[in-house]
């Protein structure tokens, strides 16, 4: 994989698109970095699974989707949510467990989502989103709609039974689902080659009779283009598709994991290929002032979200009984 993006390819894109994509990636990075500080400061409850280094996957995929297309996510959902259009405010409030969050403070970090923006609340169970995505694809097909579902999961999930069941049924019924494996080389602390001989995840597509493709997951435009192709196929009844995005996590599996298992030279290689740095390097000769402006704007945006979240009201005891049953139960 290259240490710089293809300049000829970049020249084909309108500037506003490139800046949008850049801003979205920086937004995710800064959101995650700020959340890390909040966690260290003791303001953020629970543990947190962060996605620094994987921003191009979330942003490249979601940029290729329509607003009414759907995504499913994982225990590492912040990037997916921000890429799909959730605001830093509704996310940050949710992470603080406050009432105004995207899931009213009941989901927290691992269950962020907003169905109106096309994101089902994230499912933290590894592989748990895969059968759900197949079911959503079936619903779309039976209703004759033209939406697609982009289903995010890590390479660790591909050894779960749910992966086999979900992908196989989606294949049998030609469902409009893009199975997106963010292969960051480690399932928690375990390297991929220790859990499977099939270290090229896209090769598994053959076993289901569908198309698979491996893409540089740190090249946001490569991810965008591969997702566009896959979405087109899905909308023409030729789905599902398995996309493998090769990427790298710059943090531990969770905040409590110091990722000592990542070899130093491997970390150095991937840090040089950081998705934000790659795009910035390609754009900065022409657009330095715009990029700086974006970075400053994002920082201010995140600070606002933190202030809003700190000041947001806590849920009340009455909220315990809402969103639990289809018809809320009231004790006499």
């Amino acid at each position, binding site marked *: 994989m290259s240490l710089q993006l293809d300049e000829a390819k970049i020249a084909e894109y309108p500037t506003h698109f490139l800046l949008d994509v850049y801003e979205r990636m*920086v937004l995710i*990075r*800064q959101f995650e*970095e*700020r959340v*890390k*500080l909040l*966690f*260290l*400061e*003791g*303001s953020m*409850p629970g543990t947190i699974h962060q996605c*620094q280094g994987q921003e191009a996957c979330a942003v490249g995929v979601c940029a290729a989707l329509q607003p009414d297309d759907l995504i499913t996510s994982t225990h590492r959902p912040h990037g997916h949510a921000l890429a799909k259009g959730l605001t830093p405010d509704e996310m940050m409030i949710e992470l603080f467990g406050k009432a105004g969050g995207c899931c009213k403070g009941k989901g927290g970090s691992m269950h962020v989502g907003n169905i109106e923006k096309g994101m089902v609340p994230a499912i933290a169970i590894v592989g748990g989103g895969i059968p759900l995505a197949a079911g959503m694809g079936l619903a779309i097909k039976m209703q004759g709609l033209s939406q697609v579902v982009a289903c995010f999961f890590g390479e660790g999930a591909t050894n779960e039974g749910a992966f086999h069941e979900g992908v196989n049924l989606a294949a049998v019924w030609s469902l409009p689902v893009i199975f997106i494996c963010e292969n960051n080389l480690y399932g928690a602390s375990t390297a991929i080659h220790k859990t499977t001989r099939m270290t090229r995840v896209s090769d598994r597509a053959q076993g289901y009779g569908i198309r698979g493709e491996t893409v540089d997951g740190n090249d946001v435009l490569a991810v965008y283009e591969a997702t566009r192709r896959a979405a087109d196929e899905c909308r023409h009844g030729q789905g599902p598709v398995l996309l493998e995005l090769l990427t790298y996590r710059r943090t531990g599996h969770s*905040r*409590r*994991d*110091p990722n*000592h298992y990542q070899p130093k030279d491997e970390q150095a290689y991937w840090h040089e290929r*950081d998705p*934000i*740095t790659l795009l*910035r390097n390609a754009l900065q000769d022409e657009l330095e002032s715009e990029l700086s402006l974006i*970075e*400053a704007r994002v*920082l201010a945006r995140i*600070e606002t979200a*933190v*202030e809003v979240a*700190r*000041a947001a*009201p*806590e849920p009340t*005891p009455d909220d315990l009984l809402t969103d639990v049953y289809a018809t809320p139960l009231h004790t006499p």
Partner: protein
Amino acid sequence: MRIEIKMPDLATTDSEVTLLHWLVEPGQAVKLGQPLLEIETDKATMEVESIAAGVLAETHAQPGERVAVGQVVAVIENDLAESTPPADTESVTAQLDAETLPSPAPTPPSAPGSAPRVSLFLSNKARRLQRENTVALSPVQRDVARRVQEAKQSIPHYYLHTSACAEPMAALHNAAQHNLVWDAFFVMAAARALRSFEKMQFRYAGDALARNPDAIGIAVDVDDELFVMAIDNPLAQTPENISAQIIDRVSRIKQGDASAKRLAPTWLTISNLGGENIESFQAVINPPGAAILSVGKIMPTVVAKGSGQIAIEQRVQLGLAVDHRVVNGRYAARFLGQIVRELESL
């Protein structure tokens, strides 16, 4: 401004972590995100990054100290004019330094009825009193405490007592060129006895018995910490190499070698307090093993012989605590009898 640095919640199952080192000295400048201290949690060692830029003004905990999550460990003084720009300019992240980061907003008072998340906020006086009147268990001893409590509460123990003639053992011990560890003889006798009492190697697993690894554990107390070291494939061993393994393992534990402290499953554990002048005792089973052999002091004992004579010989008292779910009393009694015969024919 003064920014208090609290110990973040980085442990997996604990509410305390151990401070290993300060990575910054008081008086030195600190960048946002710079590693400030190294800690050991119940699961890993890791660095804790600074949540503020400025100068490290105070530290409130020493290396080696157990620190509660949420406790203030340092104060950083933040003077915007003096703060240094980050060296790492290629990373967008690093630009979050003191010059661009707005001062942290003051935490709004909690809404009525909302409980604070961490309930460990004590006054300094309360914290001092707590420190003076409690002694923290080491990580090893916390694990021992948890395991013995679980074993004693969940395993239906019963206890057998007998004694064996220790003359053959003592002869071998005296004749050996190198210093032999007494435990080695009991490992060998138990391993040989297992050949005719195979069920002793199993553990209770619901409505079935499951086979344990072919290894015998020896309980060793090193500086008030209890370890069980496994002797693998004991039938293939000699007293000499069992002794060498035990001596080597103890010296590695003393040197702090983490791999030497690792616990491995065994089918039997041997606990020997003979060296402490204990004549006999009963021990707590060490799971997943189904039994633990307790060994007392080898001592001259008056024995009545069949001919009506009395004699004095070296004898040792043995106890066997057994998991009743695995074997009944008669089986275990015969197994213990076989250990005695093996010891007497070494």
